[in-house]
């Protein structure tokens, strides 16, 4: 049946996949590959080598889709994770890099992967990490926000909310009835 053949093909590709990744490993010395399962690879790479790795993966190993770029705030440095998916070999490679906290600047990979434009802009808005060379660096979601980058761990959303907003009293009859019977909010 069709899906069984697909599975077989995936296994074959998996073998060839490790070969390709091995070759790339030899070409770039600052690379650390960790295999999680058949379809997930984690690659740790230095920030300078990432664009080269991405173009190699796209050009040689068929990683045509940039699934997402995630940013993690580790309070002393940012971690950027590039998730790449290959439609040919059905394998996802996550390339992890670390960049410094201030100034948070990195190079854009827009000219390798077009979808990077959206994710880089998102990270710029949410974390303040600037990507040099991206044509889409103007604001999109937080156009009318003047505070600090909200996704930073140092930004306390609860404090901001308490400063900016009120709460209104909500005492409907049914709540009063319950409270009269001795009910209360369990916290």
């Amino acid at each position, binding site marked *: *049946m069709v*899906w069984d053949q*697909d*599975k077989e093909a995936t296994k074959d590709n998996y073998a060839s996949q490790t070969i390709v990744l091995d070759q790339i490993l030899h070409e770039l010395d600052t690379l650390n590959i960790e295999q999680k399962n058949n*379809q*997930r690879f984690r690659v740790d790479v230095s920030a300078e080598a990432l664009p080269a790795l991405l173009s190699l993966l796209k050009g040689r190993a068929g990683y*045509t*889709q*940039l*699934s*997402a770029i*995630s*940013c*993690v*705030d580790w309070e002393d440095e940012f971690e950027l*994770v590039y*998730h790449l*998916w290959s*439609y040919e070999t*059905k394998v*996802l490679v*996550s390339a992890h890099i670390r960049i410094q906290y201030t100034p948070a600047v990195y190079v854009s990979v827009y000219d390798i*992967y*077009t*979808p990077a*434009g*959206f*994710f880089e802009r*998102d990270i710029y808005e*949410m974390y303040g990490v600037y990507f040099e060379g991206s044509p889409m660096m103007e604001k*999109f*979601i*937080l*156009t*009318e926000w003047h505070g600090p980058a*909200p*996704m930073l761990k140092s*930004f306390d*959303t*609860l404090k901001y909310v308490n400063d900016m907003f009120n709460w209104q009293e909500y005492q409907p009859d049914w709540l009063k009835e319950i409270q009269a019977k001795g009910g209360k909010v369990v916290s």
Partner: protein
Amino acid sequence: MRAENYQAVTHPESHEFELNFGPNHPGIEGNYALKVRVNGDKIVAAKADGGYLHRGFEKLMEGRLWIQNIALVPRICVPDPVPMEMCYALGVEDLCQFEVPERANWLRVLQLELSRIAAHLFTFGGHAATVGMYSNMFWGIADRDLILDMFEQMTGGRVYHMYTIPGGVRRDVGVEQLDKISDLLDYLEKRLSDYDNLFFNNKIFIQRARDTGILTPKQALSWGVTGPNLRACGLAFDVRRDDAYLCYDQIDFDIATETAGDALARNLVRRKELAQSIYIVRQVIDYLKKDKSTHIRCQIPNPLAWKVPAGETYTRVESSKGELSFYIVSNGGEKPYRVHVRGPSSMHAVQVLEKLVTGGRLEDVAQIMFSLDACPPEVDR
């Protein structure tokens, strides 16, 4: 007429002007805006403007317990919430190394596919309404409501179910309920021929949708298009098959494809997927009826003091709009350290929409947006 009075009319340099599509415009799906520059009926430039539905989900999730986030997650995409729960649950299970019972996986597939049917019915309706055919919208949304009834009977929730939790599902589904679902599927299959007659084979609709917003396979791949929109270009890629999760590797289904890559093809792919989903749900019902196990979730720790082991995971699910993925990082605490949501529409509604709309006609803006099935809350999060 005297000769000197007969002068050529001088035209200004540019007849272009800006037109706001949205956020309050019936041609826009949800609360989203598109600024278009129009010259006559032709669109010279388009700029998407999002953020109207921004709630800071990723920040909110960092501030809540792992168990509390189950309730928060489905609200990311309103028309199709189940894949969101599913993706989150898959991620947490991966981090905690949970062994999910087989029956729970099949129950999840039941939910996912019913949700896909509901979402596609909604999209047909919306797409039909953009070209002025309201009957299809009225019928489709009323039929979708019947699926919501099934959800309500199964889970207690009409739109948001919070049914899928890390480790399994909340409740079992009885045989009577399965019979009801199977009756509903019979009804929907009967209705599909009505939809074919009214909408999919409608000459004027075909005339309008054909060659509108064409995506070539090469463009689709390089712009990060996924899901039905990618399959409409003739590329049979589906996360359910390629990166199989749950029990999709044990289920027989075809990947619906079309080759044209225009609005019509995208619509027809959804129509075929609807039929495929009905086929999948029937298989699931057969399995669930045969399966006598009652084990629907594994043991989870005390939810109020639940510490998920440190690690990171990237999970992908095929939602009705395309590839949905969650990147979850845990530092071993009671709350997630970081959750990144990659909604499928974050590509479709921004870059792809801008590029497809530019150079097209004003009449087609709404149609292209709905044919891409762009869901703004996924973009804004």
